[in-house]
């Protein structure tokens, strides 16, 4: 029998391993050449792995969630022809060198590369739903959803095969919610009902629910979990909250947006904050740093690469605006907007999702007075933006309505003293309250 082994190809520069996030095939499946067999996730990007040959899957080398080293066996395929013809055997042997020589990998890697961007997009949408514990056969995980209730006394709508299965299983179909068109009860509805029992049968009033859905943590969610745990365990956070009067800034922003050129992006508060941070970092450069605590070295960067935490359909992602120090206000705005959209659409590249030296997190749109941001390890500072609200401010003689915004910022207290942290935030505050200062040279 001619067998072909597909190994995990080189999925990106400097990547030694990748997490298997999805199988597109199962043992016994017959696949064509170029059919996608699996999706793996590296630090940031998801890559689809195609099959370079046609054949039948006989073995899967990992389970979803496993971290697979580049070059290790992913799938074994039985090649068509079943070895009856010697020529087939030779071809199979030539295609699948037994040792882990790189010969097998390049064609796969080449095939994978042009696909990686759209593939990441697909993976992004696919993972929006919680990935169940057995994704390759996800059907039984379907939940009972109450279809439109059937009017009293109406016969349930179901095919004869479904009706017979229900009868044999001792189930009254009138109790089974149908998810098909017009409330038709499908085999899957029956599966779900068999799995969950009659507890969810339609009954008036409030019902206790006892079902527990086990969701295996894979892909981006697992990465987020690991990173958050690492940051929170290693870094003693100090969080400093200050309120900023952004009345003047908002006026300027409105004015600039009103007079901007058509090709210029609409300004949000974000580019002003980025520019203000660049100014403040010039005075407190050790806040723009990566702390390698194992080596005991702080890598202080001159370039300001600002990560911008973004909520995407897959979860939290941090696209990075590189060299904010070299971008003007409009440049910062354009770059932040482009990267944010890319992250949401799942088209952001690995490079765009890594390399930040300081991070901004903003939950302002939702509201909230204070946040306690977790530092984007191994960075040492993160600036959190809260909602702008109009508050009465005492100006010495009277209360004035002012647009106020809180900044909630966290710092690695191992590297940054409270005094420096506070000074840094106060500098940003001063810049934002008198926005002309942001643009003053020297």
């Amino acid at each position, binding site marked *: 029998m001619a067998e072909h082994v597909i190994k995990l190809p080189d999925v990106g520069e400097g990547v030694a391993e990748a997490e298997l996030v999805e199988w597109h095939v199962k043992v016994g499946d017959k696949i064509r050449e170029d059919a996608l067999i699996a999706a793996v996730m590296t630090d940031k990007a998801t890559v689809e792995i195609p099959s370079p040959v046609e054949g039948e899957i006989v073995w899967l080398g990992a389970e979803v969630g496993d971290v697979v080293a580049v070059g290790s066996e992913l799938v074994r395929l039985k090649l068509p022809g079943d070895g009856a013809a010697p020529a087939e055997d030779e071809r199979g042997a030539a295609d699948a060198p037994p040792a882990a020589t790189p010969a097998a990998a390049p064609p796969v890697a080449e095939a994978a590369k042009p696909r990686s961007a759209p593939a990441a997009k697909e993976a992004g949408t696919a993972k929006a739903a919680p990935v169940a514990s057995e994704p390759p056969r996800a059907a039984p995980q379907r939940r009972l959803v109450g279809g439109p209730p059937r009017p009293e006394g109406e*016969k349930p709508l179901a095919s*004869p095969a479904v009706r017979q299965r229900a*009868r044999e299983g001792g189930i009254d179909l009138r109790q089974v919610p149908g998810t098909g068109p*017009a*409330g038709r009860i499908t085999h899957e509805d029956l599966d779900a009902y068999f799995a969950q029992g009659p507890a969810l049968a339609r009954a008036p009033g409030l019902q206790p629910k006892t079902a527990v859905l086990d969701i295996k943590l894979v892909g981006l969610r697992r990465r987020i979990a690991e990173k958050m745990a690492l940051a929170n365990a290693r870094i003693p956070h100090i969080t400093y909250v200050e309120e900023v009067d952004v009345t003047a800034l908002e006026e300027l922003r409105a004015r600039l947006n009103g007079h901007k050129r058509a090709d210029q992006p609409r300004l949000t508060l974000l580019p002003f904050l980025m520019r203000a941070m660049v100014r403040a970092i010039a005075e407190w450069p050790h806040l723009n740093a990566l702390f390698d605590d194992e080596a005991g070295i702080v890598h202080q960067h001159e370039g300001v690469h600002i990560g911008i935490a973004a909520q995407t359909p897959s979860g939290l992602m941090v696209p990075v605006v590189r060299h904010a120090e070299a971008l003007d206000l409009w440049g910062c705005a354009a770059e932040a907007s482009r990267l944010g959209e890319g992250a949401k659409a799942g088209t952001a590249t690995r490079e765009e999702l890594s390399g930040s030296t300081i991070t901004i997190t903003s939950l302002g749109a939702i509201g909230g007075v204070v946040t306690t941001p977790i530092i984007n390890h191994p960075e040492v500072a993160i600036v959190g933006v809260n909602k702008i609200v109009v508050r009465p401010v005492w100006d010495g003689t009277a209360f004035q309505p002012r647009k106020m915004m809180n900044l909630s910022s966290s710092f690695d207290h191992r590297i940054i003293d409270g005094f420096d942290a506070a000074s840094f935030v106060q500098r940003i505050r001063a810049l934002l309250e008198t926005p002309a200062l942001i643009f003053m040279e020297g």
Partner: protein
Amino acid sequence: MSPLKDIDCKLLVIGAGPGGYVCAIRAGQLGIDTVIVEARKPGGTCLNIGCIPSKALIHAADQFAAAQRFASGKSALGISASAPVLDLARTMHWKDAIVGRLTGGVAGLLKKARVKTVEGFARFRDGKTVEVETEIGLQVIRASEIVIATGSEPIALPSLPFGGKVISSTGALALTKVPERLVVIGAGYIGLELGTAFAKMGACVTVVEALPRILPQYDAELTRPVEKRLRELGIEVLLEAKAKGLKGDDLVVESAAGGEVALPADKILVTVGRKPATEGFGLEELDLDRDGRYLRIDDKCRTSMRGIYAIGDVTGEPMLAHRASAQGEMVAEIIAGENRAWDKRCIPAVCFTDPEIVTAGLSPDEAKALGYEVKIGTFPFQANGRAMTLEEDAGFIRIVARADNHVVLGVQGVGAGISELSSAFALAIEMGARLEDIAATVHAHPTQSEAFMEASFRALGHPIHI
């Protein structure tokens, strides 16, 4: 006559019609020790004196009519031929050969399923014991479960008992000469199927019907193409007319106006309905609950006596072979211990008139009577290419669906050869299809079945070909 050794079995089926023999074969497949009793050839009314022989006769009549059309020189197809001659005796011989093949086939299938066949008339002794008068003696059979599948028989008119020139459908299917003047009493599907066939074979046919319309179980829209065809064939239909009796060679008929008319007739075919065969085999001993003339059954075909089931025509309307078969299959599985119940959504019915009528599920009126708001789509064969190429563009397909969720409630159609579409109609209803499901199913071109898809389009408001 020496007494035969008693037979003990698990299941005894009385009657080897399409209900009984299917039940017995299925039971045999399921490993049930089964005996079937039948006095005549297996296959019942359907194979011997009903569905099959009448369809053979209708086919022969159609072929003869086509030949006559060619001979008339009026065929638009440009075909001409010399005057055809029909040898009905040979037609009947051919028909009998088909029947023989089928009944022989059933006997073989029963044997293959290890079902023991006992030939003779059965008679109940009690709810567990039946005696059969066989050629070689009295056979006593004891069974733990008994299925009554005795079928039905033609109803005779008291004023016109069968005999002589008064014949039932059975007699009509055994004629060896086409009667010159045939009077058919009863414009139900059996009378019209046979009346039409004999008219095509050259008989002068008159149909006498007591009700104000033909095929009263169908709505007027469906029967209109049939009425038109009857007129074209020169068949006279007397509605609201009652057959009173024979007066010499003539049949006396009380007409709608009240006067009496004498219809000269060589043969008088009485097809005024069928009644369940519940007499003459000791059923009275068991005193089973009745539903009118029929045996009362529940959704598992159980009668009021434990261990006794009834299937087929003896259990009521619709008296159709395929209903009996489905019941028989179900009962065999129930006896084998399976959990089954009658939950069919529809029993399609076909009337092999010219053109044919098919119904499945609810008609528009029936649906409205049940309180449904309906959407109806009708597509005429006049707009169907395949129907035109067959010179058969009369009729239409009509689909009835719920207005709220578009679930198909019924499909009816009338047209040449449309009986073959009955499965599509029934499948749609049984599967719970919606109008969109049928509309989105690609129907092959050029076929009459396209009219089914188009009718759904029309119900959805966007027909293509009309």
